[in-house]
């Protein structure tokens, strides 16, 4: 990997600008990815928060879904937040009919698992690999990870409505996903972990 890799942000919908803003603080090049040509130019990809049904539909319409599957399958590092976590899930619960994902992480994700917006919340979540201090995590109509395969490392959990510890941060090789939105907090530690993964340092 080059010393200063280019990290793209999938720009089909959602809080793209916020991710770009965080990445720009981390000594990487950044790019918006709207189509297959731009995907070819990036070393790694962030899939932002937003509405996963919209993102999925537009990825199919613009011929991006297969190229995305191919790149992720070939080992391109990727990090998904919220809707982005859904996009990286091999299996999805609570999606709409025919909702496609890119896949890549051997996990089952439940969409809108934490409930509607009035149940959206902030919580301090300890996350493995970013230091002792818990992360101030913002969950917006967030998914959780229902189950993971043997290759997946669980990085963080939060108590769900039934107080059961729900998986909200995972890593499998170069792929990472969180149910929450570090791009909304000004805390760059999770993006830095991803950049370290991209550079082969973590």
């Amino acid at each position: 990997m080059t010393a200063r890799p280019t990290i793209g942000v999938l720009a089909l919908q959602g809080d793209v600008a916020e991710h770009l803003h965080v990445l720009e603080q981390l000594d990487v090049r950044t790019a918006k990815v709207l189509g297959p040509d731009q995907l070819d130019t990036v070393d790694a990809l962030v899939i932002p928060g937003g509405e996963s049904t919209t993102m999925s539909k537009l990825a199919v319409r613009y011929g991006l879904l297969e190229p995305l599957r191919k790149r992720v399958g070939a080992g391109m590092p990727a990090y998904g937040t919220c809707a982005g976590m859904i996009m990286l899930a091999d299996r999805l619960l609570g999606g709409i009919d025919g909702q496609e994902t890119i896949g890549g992480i051997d996990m089952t994700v439940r969409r809108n698992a934490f409930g509607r917006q009035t149940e959206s919340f902030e919580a301090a979540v300890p996350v493995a690999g970013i230091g002792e201090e818990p992360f101030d995590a913002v969950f917006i109509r967030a998914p959780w990870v229902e189950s993971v395969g043997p290759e997946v490392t669980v990085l963080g959990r939060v108590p769900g409505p039934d107080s059961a510890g729900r998986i909200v941060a995972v890593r499998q090789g170069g792929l990472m996903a969180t149910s929450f939105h570090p791009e909304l907090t000004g805390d760059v530690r999770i993006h830095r972990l991803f950049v370290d993964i991209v550079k082969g340092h973590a």
Partner: protein
Amino acid sequence: MATNASNTTDNAVGTQRVKRGMAEQLKNGVIMDVVTPEQAKIAEDAGAVAVMALERVPADIRKDGGVARMSDPDMIDGIVEAVSIPVMAKVRIGHFVEAQVLEHLGVDFIDESEVLTPADEAYHIDKWAFTVPFVCGATNLGEALRRIAEGAAMIRSKGEAGTGNVIEATRHMRSIRAEIRRLGTLDEAELFGAAKELRAPYEIVKEVATLGKLPVPLFSAGGVATPADAALMRQLGAESVFVGSGIFKSGDPARRADAIVQATLHYEDPGVIARVSRGLGEAMVGINLDDLADSERYAGRGW
């Protein structure tokens, strides 16, 4: 700021970050007015990021006259049941009880809207008192900042709803953006004067001057009827677009909805806008603003 701790955990709901964060997730998208569960499904399938549930679209409110109020809870429940994307609904300006009802029903976002008949001629809703986030309309920067001071998590241009005519939305977007740019040129002393002129809290005025944008997302609404209209709003600085009557008052709503979603995404690509604009069928019939009496204009409601 409302930070009600939930019963079972230390999770904080309804914080400023959670409300504004929700608005951020709706960026680069289209929010569509729907009046039935069937329309809501069409909107979801077309790639809407959210739907606005209401009994009558603005064009019909305009035609029918009388007092326009919050929708029947049965109707809102029907749409909440029908789709899995976020659902918004409208309350009258100042009608905080309608807002309490919508929050109770579990809608994801409340629009304190000039399209409905105002319920209070002096005060907007204290939006900090709610867990659910609010969007409010604005015609200029001062109005936008007053709404943010009251707790709005998103601002939209008012435009002139139900006309199929973008001229007012254009005016409001240009006005808000130009005033933001002007703030960036002022020195410290002048910012105090600007806060007075804008009739907005100094802290928010200062924040806007520093950021070069509003502290919450800025969307556009009021008169968008075509893919090119949606792209125009994006190029004028709107981060997303509300489409009210424009979709389901047109000849082929499913195709138009899809076309407006695509034009909103590829708003800088005339090739895409041209392609999706072909053979869309009848657009909604528009109203020339010169033919609209002042009493029939919604944008003047609110202050």
